[in-house]
């Protein structure tokens, strides 16, 4: 950069021709892709995720050098790195830095470490992806030895920021293991000095003062499950004795009192029953004091597949549900209620900012192993939560090994490499030409589970169908409903949920 500037000279008193564009006769293309978003509009997306929404046929006109140099479009295309007046763009370093920012997750390696401390549970949810064990069967708890080995592996991660997530079953049925793990991690971290955050994924029905005090002392977040109003939640999440919904709401209130309002988040799962009630589910979240919801389709894994009637639906049905929900959420925002949809926010952050969320499903290269790892209750190590769900139906494709094996064998071994090789969307048929690549991901586990192929065929992929339509829909909204919708979307990515 320095060389170039020192080679320049003053143009203060030079003739008018000096100030005319240097690209009088030709411009050069920079890498970009395009996708039709409606009958007459298409979106252009460049290598770093910047976009322009333009009339259909613009991409073709750009390639055929039909863009008028004096037009605003020409200036927009240059300013947004779609074309360049010079063969190598003057701001190549800026583009590369932006590219690096988009791939930031590669720099840190595994950050999310999931410990499945037990398979025991006090619920029988019909969509449960794992084979839950009875509450009393403590042989389904992780051993202290395996817990220690998992913690040691975690500290070998080069990532400076670590998230420890305790899952089950119901992890609080093995609270002794949770306590042990947190105290051990804290002790070891006196030497390692990493930024560590903790999450317990619990159904919130057995939270007590002892547990909450412990969570307060270690700043542990609670992530609970709430599927919407009682008639949906209880139908999805069966519990003998008292109805689950009442216990969960009590648990949420109690946690907020003990830890603070923002220390509890909730996740919902969309079942066939939920599809008819997007508004009711969202309103229930608002009534219960949440500022966000993640409209999440059911995962087609493990035991969830057994109950087809309750759990199976077409992607198109989910997309209808999602769009109705998003519309309702936008209406709430218009009425002054700040509320956001999480999946939309993750995608919007990729579209509207130079940054990207480390959300595993929407990462390329895949976030399996390189962002997330699972230490299962039996000591086996999996590439993700979904991978261990496959293992519950005896498919061990994504099992990396046992926690007692060395770090290199687990995280850098042949299995990990095979998963990563199949998880680079830039190299996958279909994705490599897709305009939405920068906002999307690869998801080898889902493609393996649904197509028996880690790469999968995108034309048959439920993952692709969902993402392509959601991203197209968001661009269509940004185009035809600019003003209010765009400012609401901006607020979602810049302001945390209440």
């Amino acid at each position, binding site marked *: 950069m*320095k*060389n*170039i*500037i*020192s*080679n*320049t*000279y*003053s*143009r*203060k008193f030079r003739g008018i021709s*000096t*100030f005319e564009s*240097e690209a009088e006769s030709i411009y*050069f*293309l*920079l*890498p*970009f*892709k*395009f996708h039709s978003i409606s009958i007459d509009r298409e979106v252009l997306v460049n*290598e770093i995720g910047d976009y322009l929404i333009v009339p259909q046929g613009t*991409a*073709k006109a750009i*390639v055929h050098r039909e863009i008028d140099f004096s037009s605003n479009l020409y200036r927009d295309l240059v300013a947004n790195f779609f074309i360049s*007046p*010079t*063969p*190598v*763009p*003057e*701001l*190549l*370093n800026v*583009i*590369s*830095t932006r*590219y*690096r920012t988009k*791939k930031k997750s590669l720099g840190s390696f595994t950050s999310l470490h999931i410990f499945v401390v037990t398979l025991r549970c006090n619920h029988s949810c019909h969509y449960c992806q794992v084979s839950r064990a009875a509450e009393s069967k403590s042989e389904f708890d992780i051993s202290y030895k395996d817990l220690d080995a998992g913690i040691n592996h975690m500290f070998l991660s080069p990532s400076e920021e670590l998230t420890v997530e305790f899952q089950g079953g119901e992890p609080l049925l093995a609270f002794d293991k949770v306590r042990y793990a947190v105290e051990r991690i804290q002790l070891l971290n006196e030497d390692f000095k990493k930024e560590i955050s903790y999450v317990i994924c619990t159904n919130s029905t057995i939270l007590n003062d002892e547990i909450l005090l412990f969570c307060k002392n270690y700043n542990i977040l609670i992530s609970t499950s709430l599927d919407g109003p009682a008639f949906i939640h209880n139908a999805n999440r069966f519990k003998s004795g008292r109805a689950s919904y009442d216990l969960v709401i009590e648990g949420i209130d109690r946690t907020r009192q003990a830890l603070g309002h923002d220390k509890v988040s909730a996740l919902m799962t969309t079942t066939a029953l939920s599809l008819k009630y997007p508004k009711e589910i969202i309103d229930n979240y608002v009534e219960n004091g949440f500022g966000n919801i993640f409209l999440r389709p059911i995962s087609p894994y493990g035991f969830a597949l057994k109950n087809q009637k309750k759990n199976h639906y077409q992607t198109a049905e989910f997309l209808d549900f999602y769009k109705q929900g998003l519309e309702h959420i936008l209406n709430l925002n218009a009425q002054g209620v700040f509320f956001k949809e999480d999946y939309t926010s993750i995608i919007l952050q990729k579209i509207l900012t130079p940054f990207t969320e480390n959300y595993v499903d929407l990462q390329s290269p895949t976030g399996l192993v390189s962002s997330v790892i699972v230490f299962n209750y039996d000591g086996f190590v999996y590439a993700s939560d979904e991978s261990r769900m496959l293992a519950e139906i005896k498919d061990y494709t994504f099992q990396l090994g046992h926690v007692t094996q060395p770090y290199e064998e687990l995280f850098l071994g042949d299995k990990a490499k095979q998963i990563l090789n199949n998880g680079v969307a830039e190299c996958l*048929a*279909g994705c490599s*030409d897709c305009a939405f690549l920068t906002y999307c991901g690869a998801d080898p586990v889902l493609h393996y589970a649904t197509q028996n192929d880690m790469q999968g*065929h*995108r*034309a*048959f992929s439920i993952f692709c169908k969902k993402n392509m339509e959601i991203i197209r829909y968001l661009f269509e909204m940004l185009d035809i409903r600019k003003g209010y919708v765009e400012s609401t979307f901006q607020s979602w990515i810049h302001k945390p949920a209440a």
Partner: protein
Amino acid sequence: MDVLASTDELLQFIVNEDIYSETVIFKTIYWLAPIASFDILKFPPKSFLITARPNTASFSEEIKKEIEIQLRKGLVDFKVRDLINQETSSVRSMIIAKAFDNDGFLDIEPQSQISDPIGFDPTR
């Protein structure tokens, strides 16, 4: 693209290979796999023969129309994408190589001067 045959069991199209490459044709039919199965053959002297057969028992009139529309649009779109890819592959490699050039060893500089119309040179 010309239609060679159109029955309930078979659709055939002729595509000039001077206009659309094999890559462009394959990328187009990739996305049509859910509605038909395809074969591509050379059709001398300078064309490709695209044959579509129904995934179910037979084609409906709507599906036949849909396949033709999607083929025509896909060929044009993928040709444009192909031209972009061909023209930009080296710049794309530079962007990515520089992005991950942790040690700053790569010496790729733009082949032009930065516009400095008011004569301000911060290095002086």
